[in-house]
Structure formats: structure tokens, C-alpha cells
């Protein structure tokens, strides 16, 4: 197996670990804020490592750039949504 | 079992689940969701039929894309009707199913 396949397995495995950790966090953490914390770890690190692992299978630089763009967009969306949810939960907890 | 058969069975099961949701639910938003489940189940069934054979058939795929867009527009219209019904009566249920929770038929 070429080196790139080993790298793909390794990085995708790490990303999978972060996704599992994030999912366990969502299911087991007690309140909204800690769950958001777990969720963003899954989104940022998990997706990042999986994108990195898949990038080793890419054929051209263009494919790698597209993967990086996908990760950046997912990061922006997840960050924005987490902020909005947290702000709303805070307002609700403080009685608006 | 050839490969698409599993997906065809999944599509058939989705149609059954969707119909159950459509008939058994009382809240109208649930019914719109169930309607979408039926539609997407049928699309999967159709797409699996097109994926049999050596090469994938593009005609079912084109028709499915058309169907997805039309399903969205139907959902949008249905959702608008739900909003209008709710602002008129205050409940998101059909008129002859209102008041079922009080024990009336």
C-alpha cells in the first residue's frame, strides 16, 4: 500500500475519534453550552482531519483546494450557528 | 441480490413509513414531513431501478431531480396553507380532526 493510503487511514481515524467524542459529548453532557462545546470539536477537528485524510487521495491541487474550502465553509457555518444557539440559550436562561 | 435491490427495498419501506406518518399524524407539519418521506422513498425506488444494468440510466435521474424540485414547491405551498390555517383557527390540524383530544370523534 502506498504511503498516501496509510496517511489516509491515520488521519481519517483521528477524525473519526473526534466525531465519536463529539457525539458522546452531545449525548452525555448536561446542558446546552457544554453540548455546543462538544459539537464544535466534532465539526472543526473531526471534519478537518477527515478532509486532510481524504486530501491524500486527491488527484490534483484543485481537489485539495476544494476540500479546504469545504472545511472552511463548514467551520464558518458551525461557528455562526453555535454562537446564535448559545446566545439564545443564555437569553432564555436569564429570563429574557 | 444485485446492488440496487437493497436500496429499492429501502425506498419501498420509506414509502410505507411515510404513508403511516401521513395517515396517523394529526399535526399538519408532521403530515408535510411524511409527504416528503413518501416522495423521497419513491425517488430512491425509481433511482434504484435506473441503476440496474451495466451503465446507470440518466433519464430516471433527470426525472428525480425534477421531482425533488416540485416536491419542494409543493411543500412550500403546503406550509403556507398551514400558516394560514393556524392564524385562522389557532390549531395546526384539519377542522374535522380538531377537538379530538377532548374525546369527540
Amino acid at each position, binding site marked *: 500500500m502506498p504511503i498516501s493510503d496509510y496517511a489516509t487511514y491515520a488521519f481519517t481515524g483521528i477524525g473519526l475519534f473526534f466525531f465519536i467524542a463529539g457525539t458522546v459529548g452531545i449525548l452525555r453532557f448536561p446542558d446546552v453550552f457544554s453540548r455546543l462545546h462538544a459539537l464544535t470539536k466534532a465539526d472543526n477537528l473531526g471534519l478537518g482531519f477527515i478532509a486532510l485524510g481524504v486530501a491524500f487521495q486527491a488527484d490534483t491541487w484543485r481537489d485539495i483546494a476544494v476540500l479546504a474550502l469545504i472545511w472552511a*465553509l463548514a467551520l*464558518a*457555518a458551525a461557528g*455562526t450557528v453555535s454562537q*446564535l444557539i448559545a446566545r439564545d440559550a443564555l437569553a432564555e436562561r436569564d429570563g429574557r | 441480490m444485485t446492488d440496487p435491490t*437493497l*436500496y*429499492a*427495498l*429501502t425506498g*419501498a*419501506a420509506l414509502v*410505507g*413509513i*411515510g*404513508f*403511516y406518518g401521513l*395517515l*396517523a*399524524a*394529526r*399535526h399538519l*407539519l*408532521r403530515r408535510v*414531513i411524511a409527504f416528503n*418521506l413518501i416522495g423521497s422513498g419513491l*425517488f430512491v425506488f425509481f*433511482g434504484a*431501478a*435506473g*441503476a*440496474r*444494468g451495466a*451503465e*446507470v*440510466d*440518466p*433519464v430516471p*435521474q*433527470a*426525472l428525480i*431531480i*425534477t421531482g*425533488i*424540485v*416540485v*416536491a*419542494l*414547491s*409543493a*411543500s*412550500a*405551498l403546503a*406550509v*403556507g396553507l398551514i*400558516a394560514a390555517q*393556524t392564524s385562522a383557527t389557532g390549531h*395546526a*390540524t384539519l377542522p374535522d380532526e380538531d377537538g*379530538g383530544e377532548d374525546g369527540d370523534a
Partner: protein
Amino acid sequence: MTLLLDVTLCAFVLGIALATVLGRGVFRAVVFFIVYGLLLSVVWVRLDAVNVALAEAAIGGGLTGVLLLTTYGKLARTGAEADVGRGGPNLPVALICAGLTGALVWAWFALPLPQRPGPELAEALPRAGVGNPVTAVLLNFRAWDTLLESVVLLTALIGLWILCRDEDWHARLGVPQHSRPGGVMAGFGRVLPPVGFLVGVYLVYVGADDPGGAFQGGTVLAAVGLVAALAGLIRPPRIADWQWRAALVFGPVVFLIAGLAGAVLFGGFLTLPAEIAAGAIFAIEAALSVSIAVTLAFLVIGPPQAGHSA
């Protein structure tokens, strides 16, 4: 190994569908439905239908999810989002639905196997003017269906607009949105639209030879407009604004003109001879994307409602 992947995927899809239908609470059903849409796009990739996967992820998962969530919010404001009494599982209905599934399964095994995607299609594809067979079918061989579909979109939008109250007809579409100036949503609503616009236009352009196309790109463009509107950075237009009415009908009109030109010049409605097919398809797709983007955005924003400041 791929069989394990397929079995797991189908199990997930069915489990999520059951959770959608049987779960407690309408919000749970909506959230599970959005997840279901995303899983379904993976199913489409497994069925070798990447164009459909793009359309399902964008329209089925994305736009339908936004539609259901905003409606849930509207219902929640008046207390109508509570799940009305569902009682226990409904056995007769479940049996009927199981029978329906069984009928479909029987139909699957009774269907005769096809011989390849038809010999006529295989020899007509090189003359279609585009490399992507799905785009060729959508905009050349079955262009009649696509023309009618664009009109159906317009009809649904008009049906939605009719639902507004008489005195609201001249108000702006949808409910007014606002966000904290300098906050996260406002920033997102400024950063995303340029990138999203580029992605949407690219999806339309690349749909000629690779997976993509007018519907997928148009949906991304509609989503870009929706993000900017949700952040309160642009206000939805009024129905009477003629520029937006023109944008709505631009696609169907161009399509119709192309069809009539085909009837007059080449002997058949919507006939595209091989020499001009590529250019004609590109022009039709560009016009169609504009209309699809505007129509889908208006469908999700909703009918005109009072409440906007003049």
C-alpha cells in the same frame, strides 16, 4: 465491504425515518427530517447519481429544512406547535402501509431487467452538446419536462402569494428579520454571499460536463439570498417590484422562446440541432438558474406579511 456500507446506510436511513414519524414532538420530527435528507444524498452517491445527490442535499435537506424550521417558529409563536394528541400506534393503518411496501417490493422483483440505457440514448448523447448525460436529458432530450417544471415552480409561488391577506398585498415578502449590528449573524451574512455566489455560478457552469447544473446552482444562489435576508442585510422585495417579476419569468420565457425558435427554424418545438446545442443549452441554463434562484428564495421567504417598516 461495500455491502456492509450499504446495509449500514440503509439501516440508518430507515431508523431516522422511523424516528421522524414516531418521535415525540414536532421539532424532533423536523430535525430528524433534515438529517434524513443529508443521509439520502449519500444514498444517491451510492446509486451512482451524483447530480441527484447535489440536488437532494441542497433542496431536500437544505431548503426544505429551512422551510419547516421557519414554519415551526411561526407556529411556536402562537402555541400551535404542540403535538396534537396522537394516541397509540395505529394498527390498521400500519398494516395497510406494510401492504403498500410489500406491493412495491413485489413490483421490483416483477420488473423485467432493462438492456442498458437504451440504444437510442447511447447514440444520441454525443450529439447533445453537453458532456453530462443528466444535463443532456434535462435540457435537451426531455426539455419539455423541464420547461413545464419551471412553470410549476412559478405556479406554486403564485399559489403561496394568494394566501396573504388582502391588506398585506403591498407589504414586503416574509417577516422582517434583524440581527445585532456587528454580531456574528451580520458578519456571516456579509462574508458568505460572495463565496456562495461564486459556488452557485460555478455549479451552473460546470453542470455541462460534470455533476452540477441549473437546479443545484440555482438553489445555492437562492440560499445566498436567504442568508443575506435572514441577517437583515437586505430586505425582501414587494410583489409589485417589476424587476423581481421579470427575474421570476425570465427563465420560462427564454425557454419558451428557444422552443418556439426550434419549431420555426428546425422543424420541432424545443429541437436543438447538434451545432448550436451547446450554446443554446448554456443560454437556457443561465436564464433558468436566475429564475430558479429567485423563485426558490421567494418560496422559502413566504407571502407578503405586514410588519415591515415602510
